[in-house]
């Protein structure tokens, strides 16, 4: 007979463990709607949607406003000393869905999940542009095909940046 270990719970321990475990699982499943990507809630194959991301960068215009310049994922910008530096979206964004620009990809875990992640990615990238003294924000125009319906579009903007 094997020696009991800390993993061999007594009767009360079994009841306590099961109660805590099932409460956590039930809570995570029932609160799935509170999380855009539904993590920890087993919403399998929740959508069959695609998205195509077109990236742009917002820069200052001569009239004092801003203008969006379309990007293919890479851009050049001057730093404070005037030296030209190179930047790429995929330098920071390695995610197999979000790093793909310009063509439709499967929106794993649904459109809401991917838009949530894309917004975070835009904010993250503008927070990590050392040496770019021109870009004041990033813009993503997203074409969406949700569950086989006709395409619609939405625009996400990163938080403003003041280089």
């Amino acid at each position, binding site marked *: 007979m094997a020696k009991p270990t800390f993993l*061999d719970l007594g009767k009360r321990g079994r009841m306590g463990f099961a109660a805590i475990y099932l409460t956590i699982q039930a809570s995570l499943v029932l609160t799935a709607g509170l999380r855009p990507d539904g993590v920890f809630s087993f919403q399998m194959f929740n959508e069959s949607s695609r998205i195509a991301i077109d990236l742009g960068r917002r820069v200052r215009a001569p009239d004092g406003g801003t203008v969006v310049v379309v990007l293919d994922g890479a851009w050049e910008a001057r730093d404070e000393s005037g030296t030209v530096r190179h930047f790429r979206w995929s330098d920071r964004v390695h995610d197999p869905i979000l790093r793909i620009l310009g063509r439709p990809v499967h929106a794993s875990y649904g459109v809401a999940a991917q838009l949530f992640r894309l917004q975070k990615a835009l904010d993250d990238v503008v927070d990590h542009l050392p040496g770019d003294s021109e870009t004041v924000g990033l813009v993503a125009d997203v074409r969406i095909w949700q569950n086989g319906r006709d395409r619609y579009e939405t625009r996400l903007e990163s938080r403003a940046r003041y280089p």
Partner: protein
Amino acid sequence: MMSLLRRWQIEEDDTYVLSLVRAILGVLLLLSGLRELSIHRGDTSFDDVFHIAIIPEALLPGPAVFSALLVAQIVFALLVVVGRWARPSLLATAVVGLYLLSCDRLGYHNNRYALLLFALLLAFSPCDRAFVWRRPAATAAERKGPLWAARLAQLQMSIIYLASGGSKLLDPDWREGRVIGDRLARATSLAVAKGVPAALMEVLAHPTLASALAKLAIVTELFLAVGLFLPRTRTFALWWGVMFHLTIEVTSQVELFTWLSLAVYALFAVPTLRERQVLYDPGRSWGGFLARVVERLDWLARFDIRADAEAARGHGFVIVERDGTRASGLLGLARVARATPLLFPLFVPLRVLARAFSPPEGG
């Protein structure tokens, strides 16, 4: 309800099948760990890449610790496979895995999360009493142990079906067949590559059929959540579930989820071993052949196989069920299929054929 809870708390039985599930889970954990390691860039820190941490950023590991944890996952998985330090390793791999999953929700996948949950639950079960490398086979008495955590793992499977089926039921796009229709239309090339006829995929993606399939998928998941627990429906639920998961496997990319689900299905088998008999006539080649096949494929140790021409009563082989019912011919084959994992998909077709062509032999 109280007696059910009391029984769940104290139930003990053979842990042979439980130990087999542990070994399979170890292999799945190993494959999962190797995949993670293969895509990991050793010198990249979370600071260098876009990520969405669930836990506070301060708790994220540096590159060296992250790499060490991935390697540790593989070592734990190997220990789980061989059965040495299997239970602490299961717990460790679950804790480390859930931690790593919480470091970046971009890397979250339901199947990986499910694998870790089953590892966690099996850690609390005596799943190390059989299938242990270089340890002599344990006796039935030594293998006997509490099954409460294994029952909890069964319940976890049910939670997955309930959550998945319930969310689809509440989604109009799912109920109407939009999701499954579009998915099937787009999965055609993948399915064809796996051997599914293209014409079949086109028919399945038709809106009318897609709507029917969507409802069938929802009903299937909700049925499995309950049907696996009811003695009257369990065998059919297991068969239907196997078909369901194999269909998903050939039409979608679900990493290890199919094999994880099928492994967990083994926990629904009655724990006691060799309650059925295969009695065969060694003088008949067909009986001897079937006995050898069953011996090789009886991974759940369901059968006591004996050469006994007299008991075979003129048949090549006879299957004796738990309740003493005897069956030979097609029905006997159906009963062999019912209890052997590899032949299990044939159980219902054989049973239907047996009903059509040969009445059961009483006994």
